[in-house]
C-alpha cells in the first residue's frame, strides 16, 4: 500500500480509538447497520466522509484506495457508520455523476459533513430479486412528477432525509427500459407515509414507504429519463464490492480471539481461526482489486457480484464457526460475556447479510452472464 494510504490509516485508527471509547458493544457489533448521527457528524468533521469526492464540493479529493482504508478501519473497529453509509457509498457518487450543478453544490457538502442520511428505494412488495418488474410510477405533471406506489425493505427510510428511488416513468420493449432515478425529499414532501417493519431481532431499521399522489419537482429526476436501469447497475457495483461485505461479523471475531487467548486453543481451534483469517485476507484482496478498477474508472459489476457472494457466505458462516471453536452459547443478556452478546447478535442478523444488495442466486446469475452463459 502507498505510504499516503498507510498514514491515513494511522489517522483513522487514532480517531476511532477516541471516538469509539463510549460506544457500547451492541452498537459496535452492528457497525454499518447502526445509526449514530453524532458519530457521523464527528466523522464528517474529521474529513472521513466523501473522502474520494472532489474538493470543490467539500470532499477529500483522495483515491478509492484511500477511501477503502477508511471504510475497512471503521468496520474492523465496529464504528456505527449507518447514518451516513449509503450517502457516502452510493448516493453521493450517483449525484456527483448524474446530478445538476445546483444539486451537487447543495447536497454533496452536507453529505461530507455527515449531516445527511440517505436511503435506497429499489425493492417493492412484488419486486424483489426481479427488480425490473417494479411498478411504482412517476407520472409527468405540468410542473414535475406525481408518484404512486410502495417501496419496501427500505433501510433507514424513517431516519433519512432523502431517498434515491427507482420509479417507472415509461414503458419500453424490455422491462428494464422506462425506469428513472429520483431524489426524493422524504421530510418535506406531502403524500409520503413511512411505516417501520420490525425484524426478527426486534429492531426497526427497514420500512415500507407509501407514495400517495406525492408531488416531486421537475428537477427531482437524477440522470437521464428512462435510463435508470444502467445507472442502478453502476450503483450496485459500488454497493456490492466494499469491505462491508465480509467485515459485518468482525466484532464477533474480535471477541473470539481474546477468549481463545485466555482459555488456550487446541490444534483444531488454531486451524479454524487460521482459515478465518485466510478467508478475510483473500476477500480483502478481491475487494481491493475492485477498488482499483473503480479508481481506473471501470464499472466492475461482475467482480463486485463475486465479492458480495463470497463475502456474505463467509460472514454468515462465522457464528457457526465460532461455536465450533469455543463452547459458549449465544446470550443477548447485558451481563453475558461480550463474546456471547456478539454471538447472539450475529447469529440473529446473519440471514440478512445475503439478502441486502442482491441474493446469492441473483449475484451468481450476474456472474454466469459475465461468463457468457446466459
Amino acid at each position, binding site marked *: 500500500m502507498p505510504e499516503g494510504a498507510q498514514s491515513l490509516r494511522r489517522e483513522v485508527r487514532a480517531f476511532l480509538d477516541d471516538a469509539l471509547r463510549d460506544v457500547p458493544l451492541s452498537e459496535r457489533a452492528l457497525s454499518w447497520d447502526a445509526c449514530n448521527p453524532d458519530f457521523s457528524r464527528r466523522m464528517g468533521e474529521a474529513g472521513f466522509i466523501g473522502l474520494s469526492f472532489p474538493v470543490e464540493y467539500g470532499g477529500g479529493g483522495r483515491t478509492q484506495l484511500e477511501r477503502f482504508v477508511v471504510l475497512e478501519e471503521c468496520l474492523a473497529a465496529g464504528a456505527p457508520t449507518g447514518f451516513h453509509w449509503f450517502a457516502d457509498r452510493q448516493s453521493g457518487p450517483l449525484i456527483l455523476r448524474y446530478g445538476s450543478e445546483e444539486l451537487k453544490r447543495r447536497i454533496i457538502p452536507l453529505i461530507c459533513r455527515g449531516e445527511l442520511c440517505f436511503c435506497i428505494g429499489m425493492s417493492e412488495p412484488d419486486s424483489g430479486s426481479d427488480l425490473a418488474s417494479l411498478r411504482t410510477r412517476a407520472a409527468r405533471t405540468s410542473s414535475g412528477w406525481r408518484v404512486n406506489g410502495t417501496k419496501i425493505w427500505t433501510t433507514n427510510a424513517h431516519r433519512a432525509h432523502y431517498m434515491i428511488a427507482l420509479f417507472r416513468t415509461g414503458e419500453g420493449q424490455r422491462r428494464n427500459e422506462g425506469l428513472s432515478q429520483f431524489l426524493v425529499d422524504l421530510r418535506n414532501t406531502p403524500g409520503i407515509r413511512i411505516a417501520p417493519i420490525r425484524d426478527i431481532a426486534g429492531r426497526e431499521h427497514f420500512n415500507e414507504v407509501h407514495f400517495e399522489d406525492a408531488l416531486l419537482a421537475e428537477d427531482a429526476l437524477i440522470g437521464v429519463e428512462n435510463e435508470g436501469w444502467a445507472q442502478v447497475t453502476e450503483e450496485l457495483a459500488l454497493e456490492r464490492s466494499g469491505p462491508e461485505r465480509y467485515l459485518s461479523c468482525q466484532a464477533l471475531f474480535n471477541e473470539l480471539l481474546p477468549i481463545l487467548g485466555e482459555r488456550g*486453543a487446541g490444534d483444531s481451534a488454531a486451524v479454524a481461526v*487460521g482459515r478465518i483469517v*485466510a478467508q*478475510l485476507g483473500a476477500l*480483502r484482496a478481491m475487494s*481491493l482489486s475492485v477498488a482499483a478498477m473503480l479508481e481506473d474508472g471501470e464499472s466492475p459489476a461482475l467482480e463486485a457480484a463475486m465479492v458480495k457472494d463470497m463475502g456474505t457466505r463467509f460472514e454468515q458462516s462465522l457464528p457457526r464457526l465460532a461455536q465450533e471453536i469455543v463452547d459458549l452459547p449465544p446470550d443477548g443478556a447485558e451481563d453475558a460475556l461480550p463474546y456471547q452478546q456478539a454471538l447472539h447478535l450475529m447469529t440473529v442478523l446473519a440471514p440478512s447479510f445475503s439478502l441486502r444488495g442482491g441474493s446469492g442466486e441473483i449475484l451468481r446469475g450476474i*456472474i*454466469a452472464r459475465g461468463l457468457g*452463459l*446466459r
Partner: protein
Amino acid sequence: MRADPLLVETVERMFAENLAPENLSEAHRSGGAGFTALAREMGLDMVLVPQEQGGYGGGWPDAFVIAEACGRYAAPGALPEIMIRRWLGHGADRAEDGASPLPMPAGALLRSAQMAGAAQGLVERTAAYCSERRQFGRPIAKFQAVQQQMAELAGYAGCMQAASQQAFAAVQEHGMPESEESVAWLAIAVAKCRCSELVHPVTQIAHGVHGAIGFTEEMGLQYFSLPLWRWRAEYGRDADWAEAVGRRAIAAGPGATWAALTR
C-alpha cells in the same frame, strides 16, 4: 508496482500459440522440453534476475504473470521452478534440476500462482464445454443449476487469483519473508491456504459439469486437475498454513491480527 504490460502481452501470445488445447497432449508427451527451451530462449526464466546479471530485471508481479500463465495454459515442464532458482542465483545446470525442492516460503508463493492459473484454466475450459454440450434440447449452460455452479467456480478462481497476486505484490513491496515475523509472510500464508483449500470445490465443479467426458484422457482436464491435487499439499497443506496463522492470531489478539493483515 504492476506487471510489465509488454511482458503480459508476450507471455499470452507465446503461450496461446504453443499450448492451444488441441496441442496440449503433444506438448506434454515430449515432457515439455520443447516448450521450456522456447521459454528460455525468450528469457522468461530470467525475469527475476537483475539486468546487470543478464536478466530481465523484472519484479514479483512479473513472476506472477509467468507462473499464473503456466497454470492457466497447463504448461508442461518446470519453467516456474527454473524461474525461482534463477532468482536464487543458480546457474543453468542447477536451475534446471527439477528434483530439488524450492526454499520456503518461495515454493508456497509459486504454487499459489500456479493453482490460481490452473483454476482459471478450468473455468475457461468448463465454460466453453457447457456452452457446446447439449442435453434436453439445449446447451447445458442454459440450465440455472449449471449456471449457479459455474458462477461459484469462477468466484473461487477469482479469489485464488486475488490472494496470490496480493502475495506477490507483498513480496515485491517488503521482500521475501525470512520468518513468520516478516511482513509478507501472512500474505503468502493467506494465498497458499486459500488456494489449496479451494482446489477441492474447483476440481469438483469442473469435473462435475464435464461429466464422464471430463474423466477421459482425451479431454485433457488432467493437465489442470492432477497438478492442482499435487500442488495443494506441496510447500504446506492448507491446514498447516492455517494452523500457523491461527496460532499467531490467537497469541497476538484482534488488533495486532488486523494490523498484520493491513500492513
